[in-house]
């Protein structure tokens, strides 16, 4: 069942792939605007680069997460799947994994933009990519749940960030810290503690949100 749900999600994402490019441009533009706030001080730019990368990804994520339920609600297609019947948990994990892949791609795309705009080059590229993968997982699991909750309300574009942002603060903080240490250097070896904390939050989000999804989508 999970395979069927994931196949459907990937197919839907492929059909709307142009939108991912638009969201990437939005994320890159956000990074550019944030750099203006710091000014031409390259030391300062480098210091705040990780935070701005994750802010850019966070803002972009609300667009992709919200959009991932657009087709599900258009003709009540999600209800149609539930009535087949389909396991709501499989539907949730299918969508959450697809959103995770999309956010990871987006994050990987934004890293070079950050390096160029903030002069934030690093030799520890693999660690940055690992944090992007784990941090995207931390955004997509609760993000998919809340996007489902807000999909049927009129002010969903406003409501989704209001609900999502407070919940993902721990994962966001861990992602920023781990990325920052990979860029600025990690003489005390703290980076892996933040990666461990991020993984723990991912585990909690992915377990709890899967259990709660059925209550959200069923009347």
């Amino acid at each position, binding site marked *: *069942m999970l395979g*069927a*749900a994931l196949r459907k999600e990937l197919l839907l994402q492929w059909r709307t792939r142009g939108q991912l490019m638009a969201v990437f441009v939005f994320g890159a533009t956000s990074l550019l605007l944030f750099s203006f706030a710091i000014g031409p001080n390259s030391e300062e730019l480098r210091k705040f680069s990780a935070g701005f990368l994750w802010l850019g990804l966070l803002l972009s994520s609300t667009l992709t997460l919200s959009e991932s339920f657009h087709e599900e609600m258009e003709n*009540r*297609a999600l*209800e149609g799947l539930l*009535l087949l019947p*389909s396991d709501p948990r499989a539907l949730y994990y299918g969508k959450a994994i697809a959103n995770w892949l999309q956010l990871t791609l987006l994050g990987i795309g934004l890293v070079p933009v950050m390096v160029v705009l903030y002069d934030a080059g690093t030799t520890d590229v693999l660690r940055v990519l690992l944090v992007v993968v784990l941090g995207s997982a931390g955004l997509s699991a609760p993000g998919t749940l809340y996007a489902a909750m807000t999909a049927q309300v009129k002010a969903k574009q406003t409501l989704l960030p209001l609900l999502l942002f407070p919940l993902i603060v721990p994962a966001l903080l861990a992602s920023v810290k781990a990325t920052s240490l990979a860029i600025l250097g990690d003489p005390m070896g703290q980076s892996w503690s933040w990666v461990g904390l991020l993984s723990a939050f991912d585990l909690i989000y992915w377990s709890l949100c899967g259990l709660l999804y059925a209550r959200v989508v069923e009347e």
Partner: protein
Amino acid sequence: MQEVSVEVERVARRYGRRWALAEVTFSVRAGEVMMVAGRNGAGKSTLFRVLATAIRPDRGRATIGGFDVVKEREDVRKLSAILAHQNYLYESLTARENLEVVADHLGRRRRNVLETLEQVALGSRANDAVSTFSAGMRKRLSFARILLQEPRLVLLDEPYGALDPPGFALVDDVIRDLKSRGVTILMATHQWERGAKLADTALVLEAGRTIWQGPAAEALEHEPKGETAAGSVL
């Protein structure tokens, strides 16, 4: 094949302060075709959505093949399929892909998909996106979706809506075919004469209440007159 009867006992459902269904009671024998008639707002769609387990009743009890629509929702869903106003289709996917999604989720083989599309005269449009379809073609594809499910109870909410005359004939053929296979059918329609010819029994709703139930052939004499129904206050 399992035979499925329907028992509805004092089922009521409200939206806000308005009761869309006000204690409706009826039963349908296994393999029977029942026409559910009534004006707009009479409660037909709400009744069907309760029976399909899309929404829960606020009062009363309904069973499908002995399974309760609230407590045994999964069992009811395995037995039934609904043709609803919302067609449950993904706009950006093709007709074939929409049915493949259904087949995949049901754990069925995909090889029946093209055959089912041929059955509803959409074989030549199998690889076209649903967003390019007319309302009638979407209705046909929704029918294909139901056929692929192989249900024992079919709930058809306005099956003739948006269809052309060949579409009408197609729906009639599908209903006759399902009936010959012992499938229980509930059909909500404004096409009283056409529905009465296909149905065994009829139920007429008005403002969420049953105003008549009996043989389908006599239903035409009980058609409500006047303006649109608007729900009830219990």
